[in-house]
């Protein structure tokens, strides 16, 4: 048949052209389509993965920090409660101590005052007694000088002393 090839036939030149075309198509598609697109997809995938990994890391870090803070807060609360309790008991003890001291001081003061009073009283009594004796002597002297009799003098003195003793 003129101008046509066989229906079932192999033409080496056609085969060669087909081969060249396929190879060219392959090379161009690989270089200009598949490699760049694949690279783009992979890089985007990587970026997304990185983002997710970063977010996960940040989240876990925040979680750790939160639990840390909570722990610290709890510790602080415990410490403050401890301090408060300590202060309370300290203050109680101190108050008690002060009260006890004050009481004992007061007791001591009172005792001292009492003994002082007693001493003064005794002293005053003695003084008075000696004064009275003196006065009596003086009176006696004066009476003697005026030459009263002994009996009158004696009675006078005794009376005087008795009166004096009653008065004191």
């Amino acid at each position, binding site marked *: *048949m003129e*101008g*046509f*090839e*066989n*229906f*079932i*036939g*192999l*033409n*080496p*030149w*056609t*085969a060669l*052209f*087909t*081969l060249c*075309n*396929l190879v*060219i*198509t*392959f090379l*161009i*598609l*690989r270089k*200009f*389509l*598949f*490699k*760049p*697109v*694949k690279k*783009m*997809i992979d*890089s*985007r995938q990587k*970026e997304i993965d990185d983002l997710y990994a970063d977010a996960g890391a940040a989240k876990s870090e925040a979680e750790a920090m939160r639990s840390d803070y909570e722990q610290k807060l709890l510790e602080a609360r415990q410490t403050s409660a401890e301090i408060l309790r300590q202060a309370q008991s300290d203050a109680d003890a101190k108050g008690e101590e002060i009260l006890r001291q004050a009481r004992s001081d007061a007791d001591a003061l009172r005792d001292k005052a009492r003994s002082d009073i007693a001493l003064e009283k005794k002293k005053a009594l003695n003084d008075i007694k000696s004064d009275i004796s003196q006065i009596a002597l003086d009176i006696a002297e004066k009476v003697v000088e005026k030459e009263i009799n002994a009996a009158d003098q004696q009675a006078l003195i005794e009376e005087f002393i008795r009166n004096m003793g009653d008065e004191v």
Partner: protein
Amino acid sequence: MNITGPKIYFTIPVLGGINITQTVVSSFIVMVILCVAGILLGRNLTRRPGRMQVITEKGVSMIYGLVEEAMGPYNVSWTPYIASLFMSSLLGSLIGMTGILRSTTADLSTTATWAVMTSVICWYQNIKNIGLKAWLKGFTEPIVVMTPMNIVSEIAQPVSLAFRHFGNVAGGGVITTMVYWALSGLSVALLRLVAGSYIAVCVVLVLGGVLLLVHKKEKKVKAIRKVLGILMIALALFGFLQRLGVTQGVPFLQVGIPAVLSLYFDCFSGLIQAFVFSLLSMIYISNACPPPEERKVRGGGKKERTDP
């Protein structure tokens, strides 16, 4: 009715004459279309993709996924080759629908080239992995008597690959041609019958009109009735014109009916054959390219070779 191979446009008178056939031209056009489309689609890729880039990326990752599934993750680098094969085959089949160009895959030279290329890749990979000696020795296994069988099976692989694809596309073309021829003959015969008298023309016209215009409740046969009505009216019209001597044997039946066949043979069959061809290529190549860990074992123990 002529069933021929591709038309020879001209012959370059060197080296005993290089025929520039329809196949060569179609193949060249397919290559140009693919390359231009590839370059355009792969250009200006951005991190935040536009509408076109999304589609491109979807398609590319789909092909990558397909290859990974069929050949394993270690053979993903074959994707561009498989994709080129698939796209060349698909577009080569579809280009026949233009009517001017002939499907490249309807030429045995094309499919045979692709099939032999796949086989050569397999052989090369085998020799690279296990060595020439071990590969040749593999033909004598399991027993020496099997050698011719093994050689035949190795040759049968590309032959079957080539003829399957060629046969499907070219066969579709042949059937379409035969249907055209048959429809033409039927039209001529019907017209000769109708154009015999004006009465016949009128009868057919009335029948057609009734079929087309009278509606009944049944919806199932409505489409068929309408088509038949239109065909009868056309038959009456061309019969009348033939009776008057204006036209002669108009092949009016060739309108419409072959479109359905074309839909099947060109679109569907072209797609399926492209898919089958690339899938088989993937399987053959992946058989020759085992996983890296297995490759070492095969290289060491040279009797491990299994025929695909």
